């Protein structure tokens, strides 16, 4: 079975999409540079030329607006931002323009644009280089929001996003880039909308997204050793949201835990718990729990990482709570050698 990293899968997704459709254009700070955007755009300028794969001025607001015009006039552009934080300068073109375009002009025009952003934590990225604001985008009708957690989905959903005639926000957690997994060769799409059943179980539903899916799967592995079978749902898309899979699972298990790598208040975790309350209320046998960041910006100090970043142990503790079990102190134990501010043991900085 062919294995690729998540970053390689993205790069391959771009290759497939660009080879098939000459309108697909990539722009963003550092897209053609030697580091290749965390290795996700390596070699693309060589293959497809500098008019289709290009750097841009440090001008997120203007460049995003320019991307919209290009999309209206026949290109299928992907604008890339190395940090979601930088793209916040472009909230008007993304949320007030692109998201409204089809609706406010009565369907007169299509807006086939992809806003690709990296988010996530670690190595002192701190308050302004690691914000996880996916819920902001998911709040806005007119945008689609996808957050793949596996290499195969990253490629398939990227191609779907590029094929989509609507604005799609494509979000990658930087801790996923080195993750390996099976990736089918060739051109394929993964539909935008359906969630993924990452594991089947009958005792509790864990809904997770992006990087938190990895933590949820680890939690379910550890819980399984104690005879607790978790149903793990990888949300994959925040808008549209796959309500059915969540509701059916909660009907089956009666218990719900939501894991998000973002603050909880007014976030997507609240939305999922609302869905369960509205549509599976009588099946719920405990109060749903959510595992999220504390309600403050991301601190840089490594000493605060353990208190800041929720992980598999927090999900286990939340599961125990829904099942009416005693808390287990060992859940939160951090294994020797694990450093919570590094995406992988090989990482030594600087960014």
């Amino acid at each position, binding site marked *: 079975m062919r294995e690729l990293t998540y970053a390689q899968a993205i790069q391959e997704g771009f290759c497939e999409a660009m080879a098939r459709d000459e309108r697909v254009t990539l722009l963003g700070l550092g897209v053609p*540079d030697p580091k290749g955007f965390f290795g996700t755009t390596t070699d693309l300028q060589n293959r497809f030329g500098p008019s289709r794969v290009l750097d841009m001025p440090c001008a997120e*607001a203007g460049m995003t607006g320019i991307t919209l015009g290009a999309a209206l006039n026949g290109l299928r552009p992907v604008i890339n931002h190395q940090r979601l934080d930088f793209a916040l300068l472009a909230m008007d073109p993304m949320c007030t323009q692109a998201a409204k375009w089809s609706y406010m002009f009565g369907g007169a025009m299509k807006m086939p644009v992809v806003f690709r952003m990296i988010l996530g934590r670690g190595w*002192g990225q701190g*308050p302004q*280089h690691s914000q996880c604001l996916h819920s902001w985008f998911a709040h806005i009708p007119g945008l689609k929001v996808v957050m793949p957690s596996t290499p195969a989905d990253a490629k398939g959903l990227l191609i779907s996003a590029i094929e989509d005639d609507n604005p799609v926000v494509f979000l990658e957690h930087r801790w996923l880039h080195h993750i390996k997994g099976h990736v089918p060769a060739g051109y394929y799409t993964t539909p935008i909308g359906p969630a993924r059943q990452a594991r089947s179980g009958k005792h509790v539903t864990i809904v997770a997204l992006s990087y938190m899916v990895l933590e949820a799967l680890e939690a379910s592995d550890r819980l399984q050793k104690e005879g607790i079978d978790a149903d793990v749902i990888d949300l994959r898309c925040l808008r549209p949201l796959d309500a059915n899979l969540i509701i059916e699972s909660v009907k089956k298990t009666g218990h719900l835990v939501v894991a998000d790598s973002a603050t909880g208040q007014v976030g997507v975790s609240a939305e999922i718990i609302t869905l369960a309350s509205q549509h599976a209320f009588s099946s719920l046998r405990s109060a749903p729990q959510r595992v999220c960041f504390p309600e403050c910006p991301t*601190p*840089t100090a490594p000493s605060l990482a353990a208190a800041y970043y929720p992980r598999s142990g927090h999900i286990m503790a939340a599961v125990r709570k829904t099942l009416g079990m005693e808390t287990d102190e060992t859940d939160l134990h951090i294994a020797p050698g694990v450093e919570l*501010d590094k995406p992988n043991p090989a990482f030594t900085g600087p960014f």
Partner: protein
Amino acid sequence: MIAEKPNASLAASLLKGMVRIRLVEEAIAANYGRQEMRCPVHLSIGQEAPAVGVCAALRDGDQVMSGHRSHAHYLAKGGSLNAMIAEMMGKETGCCKGRGGSMHLVDLQAGFVGAVPIVGSTIPIAVGLAFADKTLGRDRVTVAFLGDAATEEGVFHESVNFALLHKLPVLFICENNLYSVYSPLAVRQPTERSIADITAGHGMRSEKHDGNDPLAVYEATLSAAQHARSGKGPVLLELATYRWREHCGPGYDNHIGYRSEEEFLAWKAKDPIELQKTRMKHEAIHDAEDMARFEEEVGAEINEAFSLARSAPAPSADGLLKHLYH
């Protein structure tokens, strides 16, 4: 002893200011691999002259803001070295109490009002400082340090427009080091015009200077600050300079292919510190012994800052939500 030349003490203080910054930055680079400073660092080695020249021309009460590459600006303005190193190590004694890291520096006592890593975002804030000063009748100048890439952000032009409109006492100090991460100016701006041309087009007094010559920077800033202070409005200084090390991190990165070794060597030959030393030798005001003593003192100061930071307490989990609101 330094000879009795009229500008001898200025020449020496410019040189010493640059040497101190260089030694601090080299110490950061040398220690980075120990995994104690667990945050991105953007070194200013090669770019010491603008920081030192500009800050030497300011008055004590004047204020400064900067961006991701701000160590030199912070130190030149008198920011605490101990608090900076502690901040990089994520300690409670850091200038942001460990919450910010190297990309977030502040020392209000020194008039360093803040540096953050979102390109361009402190420019309007600096203009706002000047707006308040003018409104409240304070005799003070504010400096916004920025890179060439920051001039591409819309917010730069919006800020310049407002500063001009209200003749605010603010100086835009653009260190043009030719690169934004690995992207050369040529893929970001038309080569046929300079950054100073753009702001001149806005109607702002705009000048280009050798950013590796601390004395030229000092004199240009003195004159610009006088202009701003006397109610004539903002000034932009575009200073040509060069970063020696990688964009982010302690090493060199010429081998990855975005810039040539020849270009690097040509700029290294224009080392601002060597330039100043040569000039002082020429004018017979360079005192090698005094310099050696100074370097020793700075070395001790740096060792002390590192050892204080190492032994300082790290923020504890019960303080996680502290400082969210005032």
